[in-house]
């Protein structure tokens, strides 16, 4: 599974990365989690950061950050 965290490096983007890591661990998935700070790459998905992309699909964008349960649910949808 491929998970991308979209964000230019703001505090919320780091938190989003942590959430994604924890969620993947809880689900017991072997996921490759990539940070995407490049604006041209981010723009392919959304204008609002932080964004969460699972297997090429945008699952969340913008503030507020989703809860851990929400992130877990979003990732589970794509398993």
């Amino acid at each position: 599974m491929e998970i991308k965290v979209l964000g230019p490096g703001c505090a919320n983007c780091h938190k989003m990365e942590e959430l994604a890591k924890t969620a993947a661990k809880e689900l017991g998935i072997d996921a490759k989690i990539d940070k995407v700070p490049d604006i041209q790459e981010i723009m392919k998905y959304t204008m609002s950061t932080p964004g969460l992309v699972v297997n090429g699909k945008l699952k969340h964008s913008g503030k507020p950050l989703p809860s851990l349960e929400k992130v877990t649910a979003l990732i589970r949808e794509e398993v």
Partner: protein
Amino acid sequence: MLKAVASYISYDLLKLDHGSMLGDAVEFFFYDTIKIFLLLTVIIFIVSVIRSYFPPEKTKRILSHKKEFIGNILAALLGIVTPFCSCSAVPLFIGFVEAGVPLGVTFSFLISSPMVNEVAVVLLWGLFGWKIAAIYMGTGLLVAIFAGIIIGKLKLEKWVEEYVYQIKAGQGQEVFNQAFKERLQYAKWNTTDILKRVWLFVILAIGIGGFIHGYVPQDFLVRYAGIGNPFAVPMAVALGVPLYSNAAGVIPIVYALMEKGMSMGTVLAFMMAVTALSLPEMIILRKVLKIPLLAVFVGIMAVTITAVGYLFNAIL
């Protein structure tokens, strides 16, 4: 009701003397603080609910291929309710241009968004009355519309960085549908988030009004920046450029300046320059705009804001 609470705190809880200068100041401080925080909470909450209906993706779609003029007006109005911080200015700009929003219309949005928002309006309303708040909002929108139209007319598309035009947004630009309950949750989150960021500035501003009031002569600034000095407005605008702050952060300064005799138009021009025309924002926008366009943008904004300042000094 609020008066009663404020006087209870000042005279019964803190046991200050009725009619004493300190008692009056403290009562005024608590009255204003409670009033402004109530206003802020209610209005930010309502605006947040409205805001949840206008994520940037949707705003972009509304403005895409709009005619100029009508597009500029719509963009300035949408700037009030669309969430924005200068950190997202670049993605927004690229997204707008990519979606076919005309350059001038994009600028109207970028100008109005940080300058005219509910926090600025509520604080001006609470501290200086609804007339000043309405004037700030009205002229802020006019500046955004006017500057956007001029930039559109000048046909400056060639001074946008080329890569902006090469970006193709993916199909993923969907708008997530939210249930009304989720919108309320968002509004609650957003209200607490904004209050957490502005409360200190608000208390500072009210504190200045309540306490420093007596210590600096009322007409301290009149000599330098009163209505008699024709250079006051451009000076205030020039001073506002290196300063960068959101509307809440500039309010304590605005209050102090007004309190000490700087004229209304000059103060409003200063506030607009701080929020809409700042060095850090220029550096961020440089990623998408070439220097000549940036210079044109700064020039038009400086002239327009200065004109607004003179106008209000003349009529208020």
